[in-house]
């Protein structure tokens, strides 16, 4: 169940009663505006013939309307606070994925694999160097055997060695 209910407190907090909803509503309005701008160069079509721009534009307006409702809710109904954003998780997890994306083609799975595995593991607080490194090596070998050898996916394993 949404942890939101747990955080909800009974006391009203001034004008903004649900900071989380306010954030959500503002995001929706902003996204709607952004899409409206992004589809502004597309023809909307006339009458019976809906053009490429009609659907996105219609959706933009709906998004902004829903966003307005969520903002209204945030001002009237007591809801959860904004949760703290963790930095460690996104940095290590998504950083590892990006590292993989950058290295897989030039250096191959032999390098990209252990790199991504080792970096990502440090998203958890209780990770230690040595077991992590051993695990990364074993896992990479397993992935090469599974994806390259058994499933024959055309993924570069060691392009500098011609594999």
């Amino acid at each position, binding site marked *: 169940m949404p942890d939101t209910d747990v955080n909800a407190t009974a006391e009203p907090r001034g004008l903004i009663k649900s900071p989380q909803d306010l954030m959500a509503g503002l995001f929706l309005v902003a996204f709607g505006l952004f899409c409206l701008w992004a589809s502004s160069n597309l023809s909307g079509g006339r*009458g019976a013939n*809906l053009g490429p*721009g009609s659907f996105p534009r219609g959706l933009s307006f709906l998004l902004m309307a829903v966003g307005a409702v969520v903002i209204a809710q945030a001002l009237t109904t007591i809801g959860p606070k904004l949760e703290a954003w963790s930095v460690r998780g996104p940095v290590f997890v998504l950083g590892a*994925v990006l590292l993989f994306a950058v290295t897989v083609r030039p250096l191959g799975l032999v390098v990209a694999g252990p790199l991504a595995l080792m970096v990502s*593991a440090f998203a*958890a607080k209780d990770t230690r160097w040595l077991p992590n490194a051993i695990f990364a090596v074993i896992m990479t070998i397993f*992935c090469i055997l599974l994806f390259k050898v058994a499933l024959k996916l055309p993924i570069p394993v060691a392009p500098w060695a011609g594999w």
Partner: protein
Amino acid sequence: MDMFANLWLGFGVTLELKPISFTLFGLLEQAVVYRLPINIFLCFLGCMIGTLVGVLPGVGPIATIAMLLPITFGLDPVGALIMLAGIYYGAQYGGSTTAILVNIPGEATSVVTVLDGHQMARNGRAGVALGISAIGSFFAGTVATLIIASLAIPLTRVALLFGPAEYFSLMVMGLIFAVVLARGSVVKAIAMVLCGLMLSTVGQDLETGADRMTFRWAELSDGLDFAAIAMGMFGFAEILRNLENPETRDVLKNKIGKLLPSWQDLKDAAKPILRGTFIGSALGILPGNGAVLGPFASYTVEKKIAKDPSRFGRGAIEGVAGPESANNAGAQTSFIPLLTLGIPPNAVMALMVGAMTIHGIVPGPQVMEKRPDLFWGMIASMWIGNLMLLIINMPLIGLWVKLLKVPYNMLFPAILMFCSIGIYSINNNPFDVVMTAFFGMVGYALMKMGFEVAPLLLGFVLGKLMEEYLRRSILMSRGDWSVFVDFVNRPISATLIVIAVIMIVVAFLPSINKSRDEVFTE
């Protein structure tokens, strides 16, 4: 009976021997050709992986199917879908193991099993709880398979009468159901559907070929990748969420005890299993995540009609038998809207659409006619899969319990690796991996703002079709927007829209909203 002839065809497909050539990784000069029942093997593999995923808390079926999609590329479509279906209902089974033994629902649908299942385990009856849930699930799976087989033909006939306007209205209704039956705020779920629809418009326009919202990025002109969104928002974002709330796995230290329920247990469980099966089957058919509601409804019913409701929550066998049956029945029947109408009722089925499309199959009523082997093969495989699950789960339970001890800080890097390799190999393009990371971040941000991302995926999958049908309907009606609610000429479409409107109004009534919250928080 047509139905049995069709099922027979299906069993034939599932059990068919196929020539497979082995080159032993290119070492042998001549390929060795064996004839093997490859579909059965894939079904088994799917069930095993599904159980694994269901057992491990923190790895959902959505993330698994998304990350295994690329593995199925090399298979033929029948085999690929059989395996993916196996993962799905396998996960439903596995989820109950974790619920009973560790007091954590391994999967959203086993939330209620925790209540009485874990209590039974505490009372030293873990084995019986696992046994009865397996038996109930198998029975439910068998009935649900028959229901699918008998409903498929009539529903498909109805669907063939549909024009663009009816289809558009049906999709609107499906999405509204999904929104109302989803967890959390209805308004926010609507917002997510709209975001999903919006994302589906990125790429070339279907009719004019104009680039839409691509910002002149060549990579975006084919549209956003379905797998990148699914893996990013479910796989990666889920990992980020789990890392923030480290769970303590309190694996049961008691002995599991004997698995086979006594005669008295079976007698106590028989009626709840029967009721649960029908409740689950009925709710599973509903568009929207009906499969999740089944167990809740079944538990409530059992508690209401019990002679002594106070036993519930303290290890009542009815509280395990009913919901577990409902859970599995719903998982099976949720294939009905997908197979007959081409409309995915939940995020897992949306992934199945993705899988079908990758294999060049457009899901919908025409599948049954054009590919009867695929259609009936998949349905027959579900029954066989359920039988396998009975075997996989009962004797191997000790193995699954050991799996619960795999630490999460080894599990999640492995998942990340699988996802990254998988997403890369779809197009051999590192850009897709970058996109997935981006959607992971978006998913994490959405979660922080209190959004559930499942409706977004549904919207994204249905978006292209919805737009196409909308534009065609308007073209055919010469610009008259009342075509969708024209009771005289288009009664089906009008009815569907009316149902959708009623649903949304009901969802906003304060009293219903309250009881809905109760259902989901219990």
